[in-house]
C-alpha cells in the first residue's frame, strides 16, 4: 500500500523527567537518577518500560499523582524529578 509521504508522521522520543509532564500526558519510564528512591519506586511497580500518565497535580503544584500499572500513586515533585522518562512526540 502506498502512503503519501506527507501523511506520515514521524514520532521522536524526547528525554525528560516525570515532574515535567502535564495532566493527561503519557510517557514511558526510562531510568532513575536517585538510587535509594529508585528501589522504592521499582517495588511500587514503576519499572522501566512502564507507561505512566500524569493523573493530577495537587493545588499549589505539589505533590503530583501518576497513573501507573493500574493504580494511582502520589509523589512529591522533587521525587518525580528523579525519574527519567521518554516522551513520544511527533517531529516538528
Amino acid at each position: 500500500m502506498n502512503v503519501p509521504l506527507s501523511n506520515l508522521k514521524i514520532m521522536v522520543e524526547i528525554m525528560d523527567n516525570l515532574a515535567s509532564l502535564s495532566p493527561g500526558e503519557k510517557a514511558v519510564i526510562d531510568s532513575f537518577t536517585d538510587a535509594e528512591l529508585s528501589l522504592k519506586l521499582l517495588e511500587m511497580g514503576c519499572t522501566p518500560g512502564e507507561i505512566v500518565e500524569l493523573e493530577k497535580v495537587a493545588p499549589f503544584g505539589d505533590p503530583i499523582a501518576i497513573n501507573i500499572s493500574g493504580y494511582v500513586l502520589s509523589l512529591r515533585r522533587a521525587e518525580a524529578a528523579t525519574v527519567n522518562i521518554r516522551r513520544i512526540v511527533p517531529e516538528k
Partner: protein
Amino acid sequence: MENKKTDGFIHRKIALVGNPNSGKSTLFNALTGLHQKTGNFPGVTVDKKTGNAKKQFGNKTYTLHYTDLPGTYSLYPKSLDEEVATRFLIETENEDFPDLVIIVADATNLKRSLFLAGQIIDLNIPCILALNMIDEAEKAHFYIDKDRLSNRLGIPVIAVSARNNIGIEDLENSICREISEPAYRFIDPSNIALEAQKLIKKEINPAFKDFQALHRAHRLFETNIEWREKLAAADFSPTAAQAEESLLRYSIIGEHIAECTGKKAERPALTTKLDKVLTHKTWGYVIFLFLMVIVFQSIFYLAKFPMSWIETGFAWMQSWCSNHFPAGILTDLFVNGILAGLSGVVVFIPQIALLFFFIGLLEDSGYMSRVTFIMDKLMRRIGLHGRSVIPLMSGMACAVPAIMSTRTISNWKERIITIMVTPLMSCSARLPVYTLLISLVIPDKIVGGIFNLQGLALMGMYLLGFVSAIGAAWVLNMLIKGKEKSWFIMELPVYRMPKWSNVFYTIYEKVKVFLFDAGKIIVAIAIVLWVLASFGPGEEFQKTQTKIDALKQNFSKEYMDLYFATTSAERTIALRKQFVIDSSAWSTGIKILESQKLELSYAGHLGKLVEPIIRPIGFDWKMGISLITSLAAREVFVGTMATIYGAGDENNTQPIRERMRDERDPETGKPVYTIATGISLMLFYAFAMQCMSTIAVVHRETKSWKWPIIQFTYMGILAYLASLFAYQLLK
C-alpha cells in the same frame, strides 16, 4: 508443623501480610471478630493486633492465633512499619514466628500485590494468597483465573471479599488444611550477587534457599559492620542487587498476569469524578474545612452530653460512697483520689470515640489520602506531613485523642513534631479558664461597631494556640534530627463506602488502649494530687480538718435527721426558713474551713513555695495552688479558685468572679486581678502543659518519658516567658 497442645486443640499461628490499602485489617476483623487485642511490637510504637478464633474442620478443632502485621510493599523495609513486618517474617527463632502466612492481595491491583507475595514465597514460608476485593475486580470486568494462578505460584489461592464476607469460610478451611511450603520458587535469583549468597550459606546456614541467603545478605549489610566489610569484599552491592531483583520479579509477574488474567482493571469512574472535586484547588479545601468543622464541632458539642452524664454519674457515686462508707482516710482516698481519677479517665471516652468515628470514616472511605495529598505542601514547610492536619485540628477539641491519632504518620520525626505541638492548640478544657478570666478582666463592650471585645479576646486565644503550634513545629523541625527520609510515595486508593464494623473496631480498640494504658498513669497522678491537697504538715492542718469533720457531722447527722423526721405537713414556714438560714451558714462555714485547709495543705505550702518564682509574672500563692491542682486538668482551675475563695462552684462562677474582683493585694491594697494578671494567667494556660492525661498519652505514644518531659519543660518555659513579658509590659 502442627502444635498439638494438651488441651486437644490444634494450635496454628497465622500472620496477615499485605500492601497498605489491601483490606488486610478488614479481613483480620472478619476472621477474629471482637476476640482481638492491640499491643505494641517489642520496643516500638507500632500497633500489634492479635486475635484468636476457633474452627471446626474435619473432626478436629483448631485454635487459630492471628497476627495482623503492618502494611508493607516489600521485605526491604523503608519505614518502621515495614521493618516490623519484615522482622516478624524472617526471625524464625521467634516464638511468634507464624506457621502460615496469609498474603492479602488487592485483586484489583494484582500486579503490585504479587511483588510482596513473591518475596514471601521465596522465603519458603508456608503461605496462602487471599485475593481480596474479588467482587470489586469482577465489577470492573477484571477476571482472575485463580486455579491457574495457584498452579503457577505453587500455593493455595482463595478469592475473598472481606468487606462483604465472601469466601471467608473457604479461607478458614484452607488455613486448617495440611500446611506445606510453597511448591516452586517465584524467581530464580541465582545470578544476583552469587558470591554473597555463597558466603551466607557457608557461614550462616547451608540449608538456606537462594533468596533466603540473598535477603540475609541485605539485612546483615545494613546492620552489622563486620558483615558489611565481608560482603563488600564479595562484591556485594545492595542497591544493584535489589534493583536487579525487583526487575526480575516484575518480569515474572508480567508472565503470570498475562497467563492468568483478562484485560486490566479500569479505575472506577466514580473515583475519578470524586477526585476532581475533592482535590480541586478551591473546592478541595472548602470541603476539607467543612468536614473539619463538622468533626471539631461534634467533638466539642456532641461529646458534652455523655461527658456530663459521666461526670454526674461519678459525682453521684462519690457522694453515695462518702455517705455510706465509714468516714476516714480510706474512704476519702477512694472517693476523692481513686474515683476522681477514674472519672478523669472515663470522661475522655466520648471525645476519643467521636474523633475515631470520624477518622475511621475518612480513613476507610479513602478520603484521608486525599487530605494528605492536598495538605502536604503546606505542612511540609514547617516539618510536618500532610497527615499532621487531622491531629492538629482535633487538638482544638482535645489533645488526648488527637495525639492518639498521630499513629498514621509513619515518619518518626514528623510524628514526634506533631505530638509535641498538638497540645498548644486551644483545647476545650481551656475554655472555662478563658471564660472566667476574660469576664473578669476584659471589659464587656463593643468595638468597631460590631465586635464584642470579650469575644475578640477569646478568638485571639484560639488564634494564639494555632500560631504557636505552627511556630513550635517550625523550630522543632530545625532541632530534631530525623533518622529516616521523609517520602511521599503513597497510593491514592479508590473510594469505597466505609464499612461500619471497621469504624466500630477502630473506636473499640482506641478506647480500650486509652483506658488501660494511659488510664493507669492518670489515676496515679490523681492520687498524688489528692495527697497534696488532703494532707498538710503541722497541727494547724489537723485542727482544721477536725473542725470540718465536726461541723459536717454536726449538721448532717443530727440536724438533718431532726428536720427530715418531721413530715412535710408539720414543717412550718418558720422551720423551713430557719433550716435555709442554718444550712447556708453551715455551708459558708464549711467553705471557709475548706479554704483554710487547702492553704495549710501540702499543695498550699507548694503554692507559697513557688510564689517567689511566679511573682514576676504577677501570680500570688493562691494562683500557685491552682497551677498545681490544674495539672489534673486545666478546668480544675475554676474549681480550685472556688475552694480558695470559699465561694461558688464550677457550675456557678458568678460568686467566684465577684470574690476575685474584690480581691486586694494585702500590701498595696490594689486589686489583684488586673488586666496584666488576667492576661498573664491566660497566656500561662495557653502555653503550659497542664494536663496529666496528655502527658500519659504522650508517654504511651512515644514509649518513653523523654518526650513527655521535654514537652512539659518547653511548654512550661514558653508559658513563663510569655506571661513574664505580658505582665511586665502591662502592669
